């Protein structure tokens, strides 16, 4: 009997398991996770910290999931090393498991910059349910907190802390929030909304030191300013968890490099999710797109291929959506173009009063990116136009209109992509 081993028990791992079981009920599946928790909705930890989501709603799959699908799950177990020559994984506790086929879906971890005092108690990453619980535990004695980093994770942490009546300051090195997802104009709308709800945003500043003898007393910035706080959340990006393959022949760049089958350079080792560097549709090169929906897509394809199929993955792309205090935001593909770059065209609509900002970026008559603030209802169509590489020239004037809809693109879809409900 074949043994399929899956390292990682989150979006990609679970999607893979489901894809395998859809095709193969027999093989043994072993899932190994270094967390002490059954699969949960990682992106919901901010809502959990905000007390908007209860713990029982954070589980990603029903309680009986592993048993019903005949999966052996090992929690709290960290894989130290993969040995592709012997088809074996070796754990930190020295236990070993052989595999016929392996999926590395180890995810990523928060980057901690080398800053004096950043190893103190009261400094947290914001990645796991444990992080959220540890922070929640300190809330009764926390009056003020600082969040380092103005990306999605940082802002979600800030949102949660603000909801729990903690004074929050977000310290951002760049000049805008969400600099990996929005342009300066769109970021302005988000920043304004957060500030209206009592979250302080300090841009163009970086931390130089955590002040405090033992406990955290304050943080000091490069501007010379200091802010009193007793809790710090570090949200300065994530790094793929690739330690386990560092001495192997598996190819790795920023993430583990995957081909169009989500296979690594070793035929029976697959990779998916935040650890995976896959072909990026909009960039035209390889990139790590550490996002929940991408992790699920990749996990699904990797799982199917582990079960013997030859499913092709078209590629990933940066895409994200979020809602801050009633302001919805979606970002797809390329969101910022270098100034003076003539090969790109921008279509833009801005309505400050209605809090609406929409921008499409085109290259060679194809949409390669979109930012939508306030009005996001057509975002799925834009994503489709991007993924299916449909030339929007003949309906360009409609793109940013309020009522732009699926019927407008229907006759331009490739025949095989058409699903007929209109007769």
């Amino acid at each position, binding site marked *: 009997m074949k043994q399929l081993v899956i390292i990682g028990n989150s979006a990609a791992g679970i999607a893979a398991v489901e894809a395998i079981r859809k095709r193969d009920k027999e093989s043994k599946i072993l899932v190994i996770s270094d967390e002490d928790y059954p699969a949960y909705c990682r992106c919901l930890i901010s809502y959990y910290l905000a007390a908007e*989501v209860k713990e029982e709603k954070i589980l990603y799959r029903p309680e009986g999931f592993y048993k019903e699908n005949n999966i052996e799950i090992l929690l709290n177990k960290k894989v130290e090393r993969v040995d592709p020559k012997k088809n074996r994984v070796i754990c930190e506790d020295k236990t070993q498991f052989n595999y016929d086929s392996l999926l590395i879906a180890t995810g990523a971890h928060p980057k901690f910059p080398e800053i004096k005092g950043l190893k103190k108690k009261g400094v947290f990453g914001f990645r796991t349910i444990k992080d959220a619980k540890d922070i929640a535990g300190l809330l009764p004695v926390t009056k003020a907190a600082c969040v380092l980093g103005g990306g999605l994770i940082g802002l979600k942490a800030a949102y949660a802390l603000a909801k729990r009546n903690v004074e929050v300051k977000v310290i951002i090195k760049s000049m805008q929030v969400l600099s990996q997802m929005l342009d300066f104009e769109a970021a302005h709308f988000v920043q304004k909304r957060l500030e209206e709800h009592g979250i302080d945003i300090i841009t163009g500043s970086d931390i130089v030191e955590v002040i405090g003898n033992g406990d955290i007393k304050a943080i000091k910035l490069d501007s010379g300013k200091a802010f009193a706080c007793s809790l710090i959340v570090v949200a300065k990006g994530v790094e793929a968890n690739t330690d386990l393959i560092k001495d192997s022949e598996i190819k790795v760049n920023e993430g583990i490099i995957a081909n169009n089958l989500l296979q690594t350079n070793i035929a029976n080792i697959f990779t998916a999710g935040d650890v995976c560097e896959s072909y990026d549709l909009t960039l035209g090169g390889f990139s790590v797109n550490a996002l929940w929906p991408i992790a699920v897509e990749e996990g699904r394809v990797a799982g199917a291929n582990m079960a013997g199929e030859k499913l092709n993955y078209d590629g990933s792309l940066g895409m994200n959506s979020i809602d801050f205090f009633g302001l919805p935001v979606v970002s797809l593909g390329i969101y910022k173009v270098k100034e003076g770059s003539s090969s790109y065209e921008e279509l833009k609509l801005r309505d400050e009063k209605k809090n609406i900002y929409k921008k499409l970026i085109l290259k060679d008559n194809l949409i390669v990116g979109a930012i939508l603030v306030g009005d996001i209802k057509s975002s*799925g169509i834009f994503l489709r136009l991007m993924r299916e590489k449909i030339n929007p020239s003949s309906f360009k004037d409609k793109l940013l209109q309020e009522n732009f809809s699926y019927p407008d693109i*229907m006759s331009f879809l490739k025949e095989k992509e058409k699903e007929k409900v209109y007769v």
Partner: protein
Amino acid sequence: MKQLYYEVKKCLGCKSCEIACAIAHSLTQDLFKAFNEERLSLPRKKVYKSGDKNYPVSCRHCQEPKCVDACMAAALTYNIAKGLVEHDETRCVGCWMCVMVCPYAAIRPNLKARIPLCCDKCKDKDEPGCVKACPTGAIIWQEEVVVEK
């Protein structure tokens, strides 16, 4: 499994289906009373004009639904037995991932209530409200037709 189909040339764009849909998903099931409900019931179906024709658009309950894959809260699930994309409001956090990935833009955001609007084929009724309400018979409720791809 029954699905919704649309005979486009019969659609007048009167939007009776939209109103019927909003009522069908209201608490009171009554047009005038529905306006006073704490959370205004919004239609899960929209009629769009494109060229000289009108097209009702709502969730198609895809067999491999992208919205379900993208849902980071596991609020959207696919019920294989019923052929239905189901939305559990108690799990939903209103992150709009589903809206972002729907290839038909059929799931729309109810921004005020912070939940997506998704057709449920009026699963607790004998037939969907939109079908009953259509004055021209443009909305067809019938067993799924297998279209050769």
